[in-house]
């Protein structure tokens, strides 16, 4: 079994219109920019994929990455906790124009819903958002004298994740705080595609330090020296 894929373009080729896509990263840290770029290039060439539901903590920054996907009209709905950034224009304009739907989820609930999706837990109770507008319409229950909100799992058709090392079985390590949503998103998608800085031989990642075991990964593509969103934005790059 060999899960390696040659190019980002090949890695994202199967994502159809209307798919739900988890995209790793917290702001630019951990954003799988080269996979996103391949998706954008495909969209520019073919008009697909569009009408995507994207799950990400944020909604992009500037004119690259997720922000570019939104500005290009590829995204019908965002599920996120914090649709703001240094330069949030792409999302803000689409949202205020009614061109994009927003499901706002508290950050910890977002992470836990994704973790639940991967762990086969269809629903759980959390104190988060109890008594607030974000709990409107959700079941509540009392446990040990305290009130909680019932939240549902979150799964997706695809996950696009950035990691550091990967092997042919899909075992992964991450780099610093770029880990963030990657490990849980890998578990919660029907098909998980990961860009790694380096593909290494099976057995060269110590089994003790594997963060995402390969069982959660379907494809691994090497992107050496991946771009950083912050650097692209400082250079005023645009993918739109």
């Amino acid at each position: 079994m060999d899960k390696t894929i040659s190019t980002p373009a090949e890695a994202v080729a199967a994502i159809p219109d209307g798919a739900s896509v988890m995209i790793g990263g917290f702001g630019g840290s951990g954003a799988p920019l080269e996979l996103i770029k391949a998706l954008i290039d495909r969209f520019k060439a073919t008009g697909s994929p569009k009408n995507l539901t994207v799950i990400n903590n944020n909604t992009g920054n500037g004119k690259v990455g997720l922000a570019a996907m939104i500005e290009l009209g590829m995204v019908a709905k965002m599920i996120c906790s914090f649709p703001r950034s240094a330069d949030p224009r792409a999302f803000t304009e689409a949202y205020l124009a009614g061109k994009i739907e927003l499901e706002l989820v508290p950050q910890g609930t977002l992470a836990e819903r994704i973790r639940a999706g991967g762990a086969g837990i269809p629903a759980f109770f959390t104190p988060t958002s109890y008594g607030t507008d974000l709990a409107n319409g959700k079941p509540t229950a009392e446990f040990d004298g305290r009130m909680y909100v019932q939240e549902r799992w979150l799964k997706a058709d695809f996950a696009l994740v950035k990691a550091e090392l990967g092997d042919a079985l899909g075992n992964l390590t991450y780099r610093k705080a770029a880990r963030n949503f990657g490990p849980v998103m890998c578990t919660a998608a029907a098909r998980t595609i990961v860009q790694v800085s380096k593909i290494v031989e099976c057995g060269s990642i110590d089994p003790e330090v594997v963060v995402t075991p390969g069982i959660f990964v379907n494809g691994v593509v090497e992107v050496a020296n991946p771009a950083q969103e912050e650097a692209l934005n400082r250079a005023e790059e645009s993918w739109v």
Partner: protein
Amino acid sequence: MSTDIKLSNAQIAWRAAQDIQDGAYVNLGIGFPEMVAKFQPEGRQAIFHTENGVLNFGEAPAAGTEDWDLINAGKKAITLRPGAAFFHHADSFAMVRGGHLDVAILGAYQVAQNGDLANWSTGAGGVPAVGGAMDLVHGAKRVAVITEHVTKKGEPKLLSACTLPLTGVGCVTRVYTSLAVIDIEGGHFVLREKLPSITFDDLQALTGAPLHTDGDVADLIVPEL
């Protein structure tokens, strides 16, 4: 009606192993099902999961070289294959419950025609113990059972309904027995393969619920082992 000719445990395990694809993620129940790992077809390499937090383990180490921090769910010493990973128990059962395993192969006291499985309690008092079986039956994409076709007393283990405490409801999709290979579809036992030496009627007599067919019934052919 004769059960003189039947498959050995090794042969049942061999037959079950033939249905495991290359690269499949597989959990084998403790005891008899562990034997399935020995019979992977040439050119195929499954990746074995154990509940206690290891993916991609290999064979037992030589006696005297065991590391007792490196065991499987049956508490037997194991070795690692390249590309192995360790993880904690909650992550391990996230793999199980989250549907990430392709196949789980378990033993059985009883299997019902609707896929119910009873394999954790004889209901006879003593100390009950369940382990990971109840999780496995609701997690793996395919839950198969390997078992003798009848009990030591000659009573059917494949039944219209289980009489022993259930491990899971409607979870088993294929049963490999000492006499046959039987799918569970639409609430029925569907006979796929049987030993050439046993007639359909004799097999039916050893089975506690109607055996259906859906096209040809193939001969169950296994090597000497």
